[in-house]
């Protein structure tokens, strides 16, 4: 049984279609990334999952319970943050967590543990309004962890963090995944997801344009190829064309339309024509490239 699923989820606000038929599911223990540019529908999807907004059509299930009707029976096993964590600015971080924890019967000792885990033990007694955005974000993650949840739903957890903070959150997400928790994280910071998620869904203009394991999405988003550096690009291109190998120039290199197993063929074709390569490597697509390619069409269509 999936821990979390959205089935043909749709949400409109008047004429604006924020989420348009999104379907995906998350298995137990997975770390799942929801990617998309700003306005793609990530936060609305998460709000639907948490019962904050009602879907116009389709539905969501968390831990086997329908959202929003069944949420009360499972909310104790779900930790979440939605956008920038919204806490009482004039209360201390500790007091905020204690008040939230009191709703679920979580005591002060757990609050202490969580503050230590998110690196706020020393600032726990300061008012939240004195916190930086990054500290608020960490406090929000702390609030999500208070219930020791099976399922974590984190909306843009690295928002506002500096590079060191982003690495910290990435490590935290990784460790949460290793603890066997199911982590569902939305982000527009792709490295954050590429390094932590097993599966991804890429949203663009309210639609899921790619869903699946990270490797598959990377492969599907860009054809396999090899990047070759030679001194004379034109001569290299000619040599490859004579050998029947499709290639093109790409940012000072030759991009050859062959999988990594074709490296020997390329080397031979170039050497036979007196062109000696100084670099040969697989053209590995990263999530950013795939993301940009996948979202460009739908974003332009939406405009």
């Amino acid at each position, binding site marked *: 049984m999936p821990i979390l699923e959205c089935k043909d989820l749709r949400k409109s606000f008047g004429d604006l279609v924020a989420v348009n038929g999104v379907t995906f599911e998350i298995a137990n223990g997975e770390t799942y990334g929801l990617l998309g540019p700003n306005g793609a529908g990530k936060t609305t999807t998460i*709000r639907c999952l*948490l*019962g*904050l*907004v*009602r879907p116009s059509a389709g539905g969501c299930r968390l831990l086997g319970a329908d959202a*929003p009707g069944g*949420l*009360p029976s499972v*909310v104790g096993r*779900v930790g*979440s943050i*939605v956008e920038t*964590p*919204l*806490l*009482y*600015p*004039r*209360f201390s971080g500790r*007091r905020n967590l204690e*008040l*939230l924890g*009191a*709703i*679920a*019967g979580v005591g002060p000792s757990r609050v202490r543990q969580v503050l230590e885990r998110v690196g706020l033990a020393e600032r726990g007694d300061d008012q939240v309004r004195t916190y930086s955005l990054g500290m608020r974000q960490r406090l929000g993650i702390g*609030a999500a962890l208070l219930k020791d949840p099976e399922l974590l739903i984190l909306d843009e957890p690295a928002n506002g963090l500096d590079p060191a903070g982003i690495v910290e959150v990435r490590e935290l997400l990784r460790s949460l995944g290793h603890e066997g928790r199911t982590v569902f994280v939305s982000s527009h910071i792709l490295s954050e997801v590429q390094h932590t998620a097993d599966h991804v869904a890429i949203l663009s203009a309210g639609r899921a344009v790619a869903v699946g394991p990270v490797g598959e999405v990377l492969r599907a988003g860009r054809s396999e190829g090899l990047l070759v550096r030679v001194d004379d690009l034109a001569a290299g291109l000619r040599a490859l064309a004579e050998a029947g190998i499709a290639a093109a120039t790409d940012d000072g290199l030759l991009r050859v339309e062959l999988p990594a197993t074709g490296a020997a063929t390329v080397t031979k074709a170039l050497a036979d024509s007196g062109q000696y390569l100084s670099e040969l490597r697989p053209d590995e697509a990263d999530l950013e490239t795939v993301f940009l390619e996948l979202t460009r069409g739908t974003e332009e269509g939406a405009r």
Partner: protein
Amino acid sequence: MSRLLWVEFRRFGARRLVRVTALLALGGIAFGTFIAYTEQFRLASMPDVPLGTAFPLVVIGWLLGASFIGAEWHAGTVTTLLTWEPRRIRVLFAKAIAGVVSVFVITMLLQVVLAASLSLAASLNGSTAGSEGWLSETAAIALRVSALATLAGAIGFAFAAVGRNTAAALGAGFAYVVVIENLVRGLKPEWSAWLFGENAGVFLLGPSNDFPFVDRSQLGAGIYLSLLAATLLAVATLVFRTRDVN
């Protein structure tokens, strides 16, 4: 529900506005006591005191009730709370109960402090003559004043819950009191039987010629105001249950 209620009481008590309001009220009481001391206050006139405090206490009730939920909407903490307790009716009821009970307790305590201070002033530099029965009479009026402040708090809470903003509730209250009530009194005086102000007057003072169109007893006016507050809270609950939280 009891955990949620306990949390809401703690939140109410920790609010800065509550503390500042209480401090200002205590400052007012101290000043009033000083005036009473210098003017040789008579204990027999104590029952008139709660009537004099009714208006500010009703305003305090309205403000505290409205801001209790309005500030949550403003800060966005309603979103956070609903991710911990998705049963919206429970959330709103817990807040409403904590808000109105706290308003009642605070306004009663302020009146008790005022009455005690004035009694001391009367005994030190005033008169206690002819003051038999002042305590029960004063207590009855003070209870009605606090009940009225509580109802105002409930109505303010309902307005702010629907408007998702304290300012919206305060603005609506001001517009109602200044514009609507005066328009009704001037243009359709027979409708004034349904106004908050007239019924509040009857509830505090009993039927009198000051409220010629209100054909209700003191209890009847109290029941009418309670029904009004309950209806507005029911509307707020319905809206809170059905509207998206963005």
